[in-house]
């Protein structure tokens, strides 16, 4: 494959030169690669994960966790409760394993980033051209109706029965088949992840991509960056040949955990680095219906309930494959087997919370990467409210019984029982919380005391160093963050191109 090199093809140490080296090939990194390559720059992209083509994707979700995710998808932010999170690690990054939801940053969020956080040129009118460009590149649009699954239909019916606003999801998809395999990699290529859009376009434009390559450090001479050093990762995790890339510009796009860790171990970045972590905590209600739902037939997340968005809550139905559902259910042994026997009659749905609390990622000697996050009392209350609303919608849709995501909570069999149960306080630590949206750890601000980068992703005080991922967000977006990452990368690439030194 032209431009793509995997660890198997690298026999010995490599030394390379280019204009710009980009660390990470997800939504931010791949977008930067295209934009810079289109401007004629010589670009190298380094991706820690492997290259897995569309033909390799199957419905084996544990296999996918092992091959496409960091640490088998089992990250944990420590707190009470701890929050389980997953990050993609493969060519294309998390866009290969996300649901493909593509939404513009809400105007109220952009306003907050502008007025409270002092980010320049971040209004709707500033970003609209980039949103439009992102949507065109990734075929963003609504699902074809034949791909909508019964679980989504039931969630919509329940919400509409309560007169709540429901919107069809906008997704990066080219006539999505509705395989419901988004989180294992799209087996048709219909999901327009970076793997099948920006990465191949960047390579066609002459960019070079090295997979299985972990970057150890950003290098410097004086204040300015000079490139990166890293090493290839052999199968099983062994260290392979070393790689040195010399470049006048370094773009770090490893995601909201890996980006601050790389900057920190390179001795770069200011006080806020690694702090301000938001993660849109979410949780899952498991509802049992009398009818066959077969939630695995039909698109991943067809609708979102937007009625409570001003409260920072989105509700949605998302089918979970058997291994994931079994891992989340509060049961064991025979009891678990009995619950799973009803797999085809289950709808899993829940709230996603625009969080107000923040956490931190750091490397601790002897312990490795540690993520800390404390769900605030206000956010915990909103999660409980989101669970209640989700359960009400599912009861309205005909669910017979439900398992709530609170340790030790009994099964609920009626709306009255639900109200009665949730009339009592739910201990915060009992909430089962998950995340797939990590943001904010190298946030933008013109004030170096508040932000790691300026308004365009340039790291304060380090000429030539940029960040291009969700680390940049001053706070949570309240919706799926992918399109914001892409639009910011396009906008910031334009700035980088316009301001690069001559020669």
């Amino acid at each position: 494959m032209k431009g793509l090199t995997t660890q198997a093809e690298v026999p010995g140490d490599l030394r390379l030169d280019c204009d710009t080296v980009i660390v990470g090939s997800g939504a931010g990194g791949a977008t930067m690669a295209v934009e810079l390559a289109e401007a004629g720059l010589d670009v190298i992209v380094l991706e820690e994960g492997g290259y897995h083509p569309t033909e390799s994707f199957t419905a084996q979700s544990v296999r996918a966790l092992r091959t496409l995710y960091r640490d088998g998808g089992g990250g944990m932010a420590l707190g009470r409760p701890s929050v389980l999170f997953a990050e993609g690690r493969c060519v294309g990054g998390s866009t290969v394993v996300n649901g493909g939801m593509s939404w513009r940053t809400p105007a109220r969020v952009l306003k907050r980033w502008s007025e409270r956080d002092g980010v320049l040129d971040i209004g709707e009118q500033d970003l609209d051209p980039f949103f439009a460009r992102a949507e065109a590149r990734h075929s963003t649009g609504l699902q074809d109706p034949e791909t909508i699954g019964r679980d989504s239909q039931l969630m919509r019916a329940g919400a509409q029965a309560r007169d709540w606003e429901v919107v069809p999801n906008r997704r990066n998809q080219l006539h999505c088949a509705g395989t419901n395999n988004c989180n294992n990699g799209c087996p048709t290529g219909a999901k327009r992840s970076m793997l099948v859009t920006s990465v191949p376009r960047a390579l066609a434009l002459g960019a070079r991509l090295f997979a299985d390559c972990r970057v150890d450090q950003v290098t410097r001479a004086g204040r300015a960056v000079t490139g990166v050093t890293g090493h290839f990762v052999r199968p099983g995790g062994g260290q392979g040949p070393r790689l040195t890339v010399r470049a006048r510009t370094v773009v770090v796009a490893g995601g909201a955990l890996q980006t601050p860790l790389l900057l920190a171990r390179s001795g770069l970045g200011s006080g806020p680095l690694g702090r301000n972590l938001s993660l849109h905590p979410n949780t899952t209600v498991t509802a049992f219906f009398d009818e066959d739902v077969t939630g695995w037939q039909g698109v991943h997340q067809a609708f979102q309930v937007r009625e409570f968005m001003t409260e920072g809550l989105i509700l949605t139905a998302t089918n979970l494959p058997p291994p994931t559902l079994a891992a989340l259910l509060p049961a064991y042994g025979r009891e678990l087997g009995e619950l799973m026997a009803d797999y085809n009659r289950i709808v899993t749905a829940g709230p996603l919370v625009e969080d107000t609390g923040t956490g931190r990622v750091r490397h601790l000697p002897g312990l490795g990467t540690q993520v800390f996050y404390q769900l605030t009392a206000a956010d915990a209350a909103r999660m409980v409210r989101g669970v209640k609303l989700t359960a009400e919608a599912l009861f309205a849709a005909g669910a017979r019984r439900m398992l709530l995501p609170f340790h030790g909570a009994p099964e609920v069999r009626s709306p009255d029982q639900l109200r009665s149960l949730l009339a009592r306080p739910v201990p915060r630590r009992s909430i089962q919380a998950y995340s797939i949206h990590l943001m904010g750890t190298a946030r933008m601000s013109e004030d170096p005391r508040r932000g790691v980068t300026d308004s365009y992703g340039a790291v304060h005080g380090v000429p030539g160093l940029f960040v291009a991922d969700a680390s940049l967000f001053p706070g949570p977006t309240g919706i799926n963050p992918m399109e914001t990452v892409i639009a910011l990368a396009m906008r910031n690439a334009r700035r980088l191109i316009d301001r690069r030194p001559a020669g």
Partner: protein
Amino acid sequence: MHHRTDRVLAEFEAMLGALVPAAAKALGKAIVALDQGARLYPRARGRRLTQLDDETAEAYVRAWLARPGSGGELVRRIRSLVVMCYYELPPVQREIGYQPAPYIEAVSRRRLASYGPQIRAGEAAVTAGIPDAGPGLS
């Protein structure tokens, strides 16, 4: 059933290999501790977990799962990994009515039959305007 146990163990071992070494090591130690710790469980009468009958073993593991703190958390993580590996097995998935492969094949065919020209145009747009782009990644 032994065949299934072997396959679960193989999946589990592969999953441990995907974790960061520190996490894999911690889980490995926790498994040993869980097994040997059964000796202190009154109903086990000095036996290891692997030597217990099903009923006693289940009671012992349930007691761990209900514990707060890091010990209970580790056992809950082990339990999650084990059940994930079990429900990854195709025969187990068939038993609960989950057979995605033929479904994926059918809807993929339907997609191409319904929207073939638009799909091809969309895929070609990825490298539009680039001379000699050649085949892209898939």
